[in-house]
């Protein structure tokens, strides 16, 4: 188990390094020279050269990469070119805001998705199964931003139940705070719930046909216990991996949802950076996304191992 854990950690570190190289190189070839962004399009050439020299842009790429990486590793993200402030505090605030959204969403996705999946597997072929199936297909068939707009038009526009956009801090009261979260969370969660419930349903159906579940029934274990105690723990193994992958999907979705709902999170910050060609900001935001994603995968692997005795105790040499 320890060995397995070390392997996974090493793997994750490797992935983050590769991704950091990618992020670094992508931003290197981005259109719009950094010096021009800082000094304006009409700056004299000597000033541009001087600034590039000062920023170290004339060093070989690996020197630049190393400098950048070691800064990032010290959580020193440098200054934003546009806002002319340190990126750190801005970034952390955005991460915190997004985290609120993400944590609520992923918990809801896990709970609702798994629950729906199990219910439709257990009622396989019955009306409730069909309703869930059709519902999930409809949700999955239409892209996220469409649901965002529908939600805004219906709940903020016509019904006026909820604010359409924006964010307030908790200080202004829990309900005001929460009311701003409802629509973005719903928009984020819909697609993923559909995805997770489809997957849980199919792995649950498969497990419920498996000999050990039939054997448990034959031992006279009541059906509810068979489902909870024998089928579900095994059916959840693939779901857990997918949940981790869905954290990545979730972060992609957050870029869209935060932009549409004007929610001041990491996704919107990233879009802002890209629009403004704010190189250090883009790099910082992307690195944070990559690290979160990698950690989510690590978590999934560890959880998977914990639920799967075959990995937890090492495979017996001969079964």
């Amino acid at each position, binding site marked *: 188990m320890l*060995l397995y854990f070390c392997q996974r950690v090493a793997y994750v570190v490797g992935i983050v390094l590769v991704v950091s190289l990618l992020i670094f190189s992508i931003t290197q070839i981005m259109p719009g020279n950094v010096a021009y962004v800082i000094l304006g399009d009409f700056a004299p050439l000597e000033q541009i050269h001087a600034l590039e020299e000062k920023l170290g842009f004339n060093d070989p790429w690996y020197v630049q990469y190393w400098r950048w990486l070691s800064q990032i590793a010290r959580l020193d993200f440098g200054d934003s070119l546009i806002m002319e402030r340190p990126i750190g505090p801005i970034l952390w605030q955005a991460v915190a805001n997004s985290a609120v959204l993400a944590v609520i969403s992923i918990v809801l996705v896990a709970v609702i998705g798994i629950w729906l999946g199990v219910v439709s597997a257990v009622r396989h072929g019955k009306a409730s199964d069909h309703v869930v199936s059709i519902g999930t297909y409809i949700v999955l068939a239409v892209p996220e931003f469409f649901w965002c707009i529908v939600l805004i038009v219906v709940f903020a526009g016509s019904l006026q139940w909820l604010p359409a956009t924006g964010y307030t801090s908790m200080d202004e009261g829990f309900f005001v705070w929460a009311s701003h979260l409802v629509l973005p969370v719903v928009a984020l969660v819909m697609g993923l719930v559909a995805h997770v419930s489809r997957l849980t349903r199919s792995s649950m159906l498969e497990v419920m046909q498996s000999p050990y579940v*039939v054997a*448990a*029934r*034959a031992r*006279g274990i009541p059906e509810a216990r068979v489902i909870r105690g024998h089928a579900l723990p095994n059916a959840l193994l693939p779901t857990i991996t997918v949940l981790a992958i869905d954290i990545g999907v979730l972060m992609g979705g957050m870029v869209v949802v935060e932009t549409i709902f004007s929610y001041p999170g990491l996704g919107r910050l990233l879009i802002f950076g890209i629009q403004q060609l704010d190189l250090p900001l883009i790099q910082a935001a992307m690195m944070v996304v990559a690290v979160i994603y990698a950690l989510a995968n690590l978590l999934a692997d560890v959880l998977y191992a914990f639920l799967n005795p075959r990995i937890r105790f090492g*495979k017996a040499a*001969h079964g």
Partner: protein
Amino acid sequence: MRHTCSAPGDRDAPISAQPPGREGEILTLDGLSVRYGSGPSSLRALDKVSLSLPRGGALGVVGESGSGKSTLAMTLMGLLAGSARVDGGRAVFEGEDLYALSPAGWAGMRGRRIGLVFQDPFTALNPAKTIAHQLTEPLVLHRGLSETAARAEARRLLDEVGISDPDAMLSAYPHALSGGMKQRALIAAALAGDPDLLILDEPTTALDVTIEAQILDLLEALRAERQLSMIFISHNLGVIARVVDEVCVLYAGQVVETAPKAEIFAAPRHPYTKGLLASMPRLGAPRARLETIPGRLPDLTNPPEGCRFAARCPFAEDRCAAPQPMVSVGPGRESRCWKAVALGATPWTSAETAAPARARTVAADAPPALRADGVSKRFRRAGGVRVRIDRSGAIPVPRIGHSTFNAVDAVSLTVKAGETVGLVGESGCGKSTLARCLIRLIEPDGGAIALNGRDILKGRAADRRTIARTAQFVFQNPDSSLNPRKTVRQILARPLALLGEERPGTMDQRVERLLDMVRLSRAYMDRYPHEMSGGEKQRIGIARVLAAEPKFVICDEAVSALDVSVQASILNLLADLRDELGLAYLFISHDLSVVRHIADRVAVMYRGGIVEVGPASALGTPGHHPYTEALLSAVPSLDSRGAERMRLAGTVSAPGDGITGCRFADRCPRKIGPVCDTQAPPWRTGPEGVRFECHHTADALAG
């Protein structure tokens, strides 16, 4: 479909209103039918099955695939899945009509009064739960025990089913256990509710033969001690013969014959039973050509009105087109065939034109098709990673080492042209690895291999294509080795194309020739694998191998997945092809009777090495390696032979590392003493030219 009933003892009579649970019977099935699906495509898997089981009795249910035998097990447990349902008749268990039970009633039945042991121990235990959990759960639920009391009881149950270290077993997860241990645990779990009736659905099919023998011993003992009634379902007549008193033969969802065990094997009365028995290769019988049952199961969505076996029966007449009731053919015996009494002891004759059996002698000076010398293969042990400090250099460096084991340990083997060598051994002994090494599907670590006199490990002969032209491989499972999206024509054309243009005829003609060789009609050219039966698919698998015109063919469990009657016809086909084309075979199987039937010589493998080589005909006589002896006495046979059976304790040992003495020392019942552990035994020559590796002399072992 109402049967005309006239014959005495006919139990197809219209069902009476009263549950007919007869005195002294624990279970009575009366006209029980089960249907899958609905509408015109529905299928009657069980058709008016009537059976009875006396209290404390043991009934064997024999059938091939499609007979409905597994459906029967699930029906009796009330666990029919999906669209299957009981659509007629009843099952009365201890006076209670099972299919009139409420869900609560079933809850009191399943696991408490009727237990079930499954076919495949490898998948029937929940991988995510400890054995303790799976055993105590029914104890807590059914017997109201506390957790601690349940654990103690689970321990006692494991002890009862012959687990030597119950405490270790309790805390283990299934993946850490061997197949035999798993099956014991499952039997213990089935006994947890203290049932009166135990249903065993192919309980030993997935196990090695020495382990199978242990489980059968256990079942016999349990039956005697607990006064259990048993229904033992299997395709294997030999296994059934060990445990039961009465046998019932199922064909296409109907009971076709019931009789006491001894009588049915000695004097079968229904033609299907005769055919089934005749197509079984047996250890004790002379190695003549096997009888077969030609044709295949009728379409159960639209079964014939009359005898369901008529299309395959050599005795069929016009009258067979009428529905057949069960007729009495002796005291306690019934058969679903009007001719059964008249036929009496008339033996089965397959309609297939029997080729004259040729006397097989392989010339002593025939050139070797395969010569392997000291072939070795090491594998990494899964999870066996160790970090060690390497101090050989100036500075100590940590190195990650993988512990390895000898899957194949310096094996030498020769197969002459035209000869068939059988390779037997239990799972994990390395026989499949060896076979794959021989044609370099796996790269051997050491040794020399020559095919047709050419070294395939070096030089020009070493390339894949050249090897493929001399040596080919027939796999166990035709299902997974045939591409489901290709027609037979496409499947066979590929290896033919490999041979290039040098062969005469168009591609279609060459495909036709291949189909002729495996006795399939040309109509099969455009079929897809799913449109064929298991036997037909295996024929295509063989045809594909023949396309390369090999001289040496490795058959790895090539008939193991097939029904007995189909297996016989494939064995005959393989033998014919060998004689026609002068092929040499390496025939790998766990089934000694099959190997003895087809092989000229037999090699026995244990823990990565060959421990005995000898003529196949010698397998019936004494004077063998103790392991061979144990294998032979573990084979279940119809004639209840062998009062003193030799039993191996423990499980099949893992292929070892650094075996210093005898490979078999850890399980050998004839072990001499420390000498077996420390000194490699010498090769001895016994009667009839059997050579084996043991410290005992051949005379001592024969005595």
